C-alpha cells in the first residue's frame, strides 16, 4: 500500500467531485425554475416569462453540458482508484448508479431535445411537460446519488459474503431513513442555488439599470423562493444532524469540536481545534445544555467526545469543524438576505435600495460555498471510513496503484478541468452580461438535442460587438 498514492487518490476524488457538484447543484434548481417559468407563461400568457425562460435555458444548457462531461469521469473513477471498494460494494453501488444512468439519462436526454429544438414543433402543453420531465430527470439523478452516498454513510440491507457486500433487502437501502433527510437537504440546496443565482442576476441588471421588467421578476421570485425555502432547509439540516448524532458519533464530535463525553453537552461556537493536545484554543462556548439541545433535542442527553473514540477511528477534525461552520454561516447570511430582500420587495422599495441590491448581486457564490462545505463536512467527517464502520478508505484503494500514476492523473485532471472551467464560466458570464433577448423565439437552423451548449451560440449573431468583447 502506497500511502502517497492513497493521499493523491483522495485529493483527486475530492477535486473531481467538487468540480462536478457545482454544475448539478446549479442545474437541478434551474430546471425547476424553468418549469415554473414555462407554467407561468402557459397560464398567464405574459411574454415576459417567455423571454426570461429563453434566457435561462441558454445558461442551463452550458451548465448541463459541463455537468455531463464531468460526471462521466465519476462513473470510472470508482474503478480506477478504488478497485477494492468497487469490487466489494459493486453489488450495491453498481445497481444504484445504473438506476441513475438509466432513469435520469432517459428522461433528460429525451426531453432536453424537445426543450431545445421542439418549441415550434410540439403543442405548448407538451413543451411544458417536457420542461417538467427534464426537471424530474435531474431530480431522479440526485435521488439515486443520495441513496448511493447514504448507503456509504449508514450501510444497511446487506450481508458480507466472500468479501463483498451482498444486498439482502433493497427496501432498507432505498428507504433508509437517512436518505429521506439527506435527499431533501440536497434538493433544497440546489433550489436555493438556483434562486440566488437568479436573484443575483436580477440585482445586477437593476444596478446597471437594464432589463427592468425581467430583473424585477427575477429578484422577486428568486428572493421570495429563498425566503420560503431557507427556513425549511435549516430544519432539514437539523434533521441531518440527528442522523449523524445517531449513527456517526465520530463525525458529530469533530463537527462540534467536542473532546470529552459530556452530559448534558455544551456547544462550541468558534474555536481552533488543537488535535495534538486534544483541546480547543480560543473557544467561544455556550454552556450546557445547549450542545445536547442542538444535537439531541434534549436538555439532558449525553454527548460523545472524541476521547472516548479510538484515535484510529477519528476523522480529520479541523476540516469538518470549519466546513460545517462555513456552511451554516452561508445559510444564515442567505436567510437574512432573502427575508430582508423579500420584505423590501413586498414594500416596493428594493429597486431603490442600492446597498441591498449590491449584497444580492454579490450573494451568488454563497449557495455554492454552502454546498461544497456541506459535502466536505459529510465526506471528510465520514473518514477514516469509505463505508462507515465497515470498510476503511485506506483498504479500499487499488492495491497496486503507485504514487507516480496518481500524480500524473491528478496533474492532468487539474489542468484540463481548470482549462474547461475557465472557458465554460466565461461563456456563462458573457450570456448573463448580454442579458435576455426580447424577440419572438426563433428556432435556429439546426439546434441539436444532446448538444446542450449549442444554445449559447446565438448571442454572437445578435450583436457583433460581443464577438469582439468575447475574444
Amino acid at each position, binding site marked *: 500500500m502506497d500511502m502517497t498514492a492513497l493521499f493523491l487518490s483522495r485529493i483527486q476524488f475530492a477535486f473531481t467531485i467538487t468540480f462536478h457538484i457545482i454544475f448539478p447543484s446549479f442545474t437541478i434548481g434551474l430546471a425547476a425554475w424553468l418549469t415554473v417559468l414555462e407554467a407561468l407563461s402557459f397560464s398567464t400568457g405574459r411574454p415576459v416569462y417567455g423571454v426570461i425562460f429563453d434566457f435561462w435555458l441558454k445558461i442551463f444548457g452550458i451548465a448541463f453540458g459541463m455537468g455531463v462531461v464531468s460526471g462521466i469521469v465519476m*462513473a470510472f473513477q470508482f474503478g*480506477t482508484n478504488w478497485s477494492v471498494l468497487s469490487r466489494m460494494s*459493486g453489488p450495491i453501488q453498481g445497481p444504484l448508479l445504473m438506476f441513475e444512468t438509466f432513469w435520469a439519462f432517459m428522461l433528460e436526454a429525451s426531453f432536453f*431535445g424537445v426543450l431545445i429544438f421542439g418549441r415550434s414543433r410540439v403543442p405548448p402543453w407538451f413543451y411544458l411537460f417536457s420542461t417538467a420531465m427534464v426537471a424530474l430527470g435531474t431530480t431522479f439523478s440526485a435521488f439515486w446519488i443520495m441513496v448511493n452516498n447514504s448507503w456509504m454513510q449508514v450501510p444497511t440491507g446487506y450481508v458480507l459474503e466472500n468479501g463483498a457486500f451482498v444486498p439482502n433487502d433493497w427496501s432498507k437501502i432505498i428507504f433508509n431513513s437517512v436518505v429521506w433527510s439527506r435527499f431533501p437537504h440536497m434538493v433544497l440546496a440546489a433550489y436555493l442555488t438556483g434562486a440566488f443565482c437568479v436573484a443575483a442576476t436580477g440585482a445586477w441588471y437593476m444596478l446597471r439599470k437594464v432589463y427592468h421588467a425581467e430583473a424585477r421578476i427575477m429578484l422577486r421570485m428568486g428572493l421570495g423562493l429563498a425566503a420560503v425555502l431557507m427556513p425549511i432547509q435549516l430544519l432539514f439540516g437539523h434533521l441531518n444532524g440527528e442522523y449523524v448524532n445517531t449513527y456517526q458519533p465520530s463525525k458529530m464530535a469533530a463537527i462540534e469540536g467536542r473532546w470529552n463525553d459530556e452530559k448534558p453537552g455544551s456547544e462550541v461556537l468558534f474555536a481552533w481545534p488543537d488535535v495534538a493536545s486534544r483541546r480547543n484554543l480560543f473557544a467561544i462556548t455556550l454552556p450546557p445544555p445547549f450542545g445536547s439541545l442542538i444535537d439531541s433535542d434534549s436538555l439532558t442527553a449525553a454527548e460523545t467526545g472524541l476521547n472516548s473514540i479510538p484515535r484510529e477511528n477519528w476523522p480529520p477534525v479541523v476540516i469538518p469543524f470549519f466546513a460545517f461552520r462555513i456552511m451554516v454561516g452561508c445559510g444564515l447570511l442567505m436567510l437574512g438576505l432573502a427575508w430582508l430582500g423579500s420584505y423590501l420587495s413586498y414594500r416596493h422599495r428594493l429597486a431603490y435600495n442600492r446597498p441591498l441590491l449590491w449584497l444580492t448581486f454579490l450573494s451568488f457564490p454563497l449557495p455554492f460555498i454552502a454546498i461544497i462545505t456541506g459535502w466536505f463536512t459529510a465526506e471528510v467527517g465520514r473518514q477514516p471510513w469509505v463505508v462507515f464502520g465497515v470498510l476503511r478508505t485506506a483498504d479500499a484503494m487499488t492495491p497496486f496503484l*503507485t504514487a507516480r500514476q496518481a500524480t*500524473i492523473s491528478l496533474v492532468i485532471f487539474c489542468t484540463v478541468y481548470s482549462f474547461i472551467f475557465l472557458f465554460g464560466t466565461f461563456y456563462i458570464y458573457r450570456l448573463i452580461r448580454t442579458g435576455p433577448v426580447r424577440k419572438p423565439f426563433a428556432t435556429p*437552423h439546426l*439546434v*441539436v438535442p444532446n*448538444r446542450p451548449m449549442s444554445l449559447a451560440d446565438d448571442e454572437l449573431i445578435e450583436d457583433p460587438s460581443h464577438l469582439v468583447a468575447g475574444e
Partner: protein
Amino acid sequence: MVMFWVSLLAISILLYVLLDGVDLGVGLLFGLASGETRRGAMLSAVAPIWDGNETWLVVTAVILWGAFPLVYATLLSAFYLPLIVMLLGLILRGVAFEFRYKTQRLRWIWDLSFAGGSLSATFIQGMTVGALVEGLPFTNGQYSGGEAGWFTPFAVLCGVGLCLGYALLGACWLAKKCEAEIRDVAHRQIPVLAVGVLAFLVVVFAYALAENLPILHRWIDRPYLFVFPAIGAVAATVLALSIVRHNDHWPFYMVALIFISAFGTLALSFWPYMIPFVISINEAAAPHSSLAFMFWGCGVIVFPLMLLYTVISYTVFRGKVRAVDGYGHH
C-alpha cells in the same frame, strides 16, 4: 439472469463501438482536413448524434459495475493511466464541438483538442482490446502487470488498427451523410483505409500465429467460430464492389457489418471468460439479488426505451446534411 446482463453488456459495447466509432472516426479525419468549410461540414455530419453515442460508454461502465463488479474493478484499475487519458480525450473533444464556435482567434485550440482527443480515445480503446486479447499479466487472479502491463507491441498495433477502423467507419459515414467535396474526398479515403484495415487484420493474424496466443487455441477447438470471419469476408467483398460503384450508402453498412463480425469473433473467442483466461462470466457476476433488482428496475423496460430513443434520434436526423446546416451558420 446472468445471461440477460451479458447480452445487455454486449449490445451496449457493440452500440458504443458502432455509434461512437463513427464520430471518433470523423474526428480523426477532421485532423487531416483543412479549411473551415470542410471542417464545419464534417462536424455537422456528427453534431446531432455524438453525445448520445458517447452515453453508451457510460451505460457500458455502469452495467459492468452493477452486474460484473469484479471485471469493472480489475479492468479499470489495470488500465489506470490509459483510461484517464481516454476520458480526458473524450471531454476535450466533447467541449470542442461547442467551444470552437465561440471564438475565431482561438479556434485552433479546439480543433486540436477535437482531433487529438478523438485520436487518443480511439488509440486507447484499440490498445485495451489488444492487451486483453494478448492476455494481461495476472498472479492468483490479481492483476500483476504494474503501471504499464498493458503496453505491448501487439496492443500498440491494435491501437493503430482501431484508428484505421474508426477512420474507415467515419469516412463511410461522411460519404453517406455529405455531398459534393466532402463526399468525394471520403470516397477517395475509403479504399485506402479499407486496405489499411485489411493489412492490419493480416498482421494481427500472423502475429497471433507467431506468438502462439492462447486465444488461437479456442479457434482450433471451436471451428464454428469461423462463421463470423466468413460474414466479415462477405461484407468485405460487397464493400469492394460498392467502392468501385461509388455508392454512398453501402460502404457504411458493410463496414458496420465487418465491425459486428469482428466483435462477434472476439466475444465468442473470449467466451465464457470476460478477462481471458482469468475471470469467467460466472465468477464476475454480481449476486442474484443485485441482478434481479437491476433486471426489474432498469433492464426490462428502461433499456428498450433507451434503444427506442436512439432509433428516434437517428430517424430525426436521417438524410444528407446540407452545407448550410453547420451550427456555425445559424
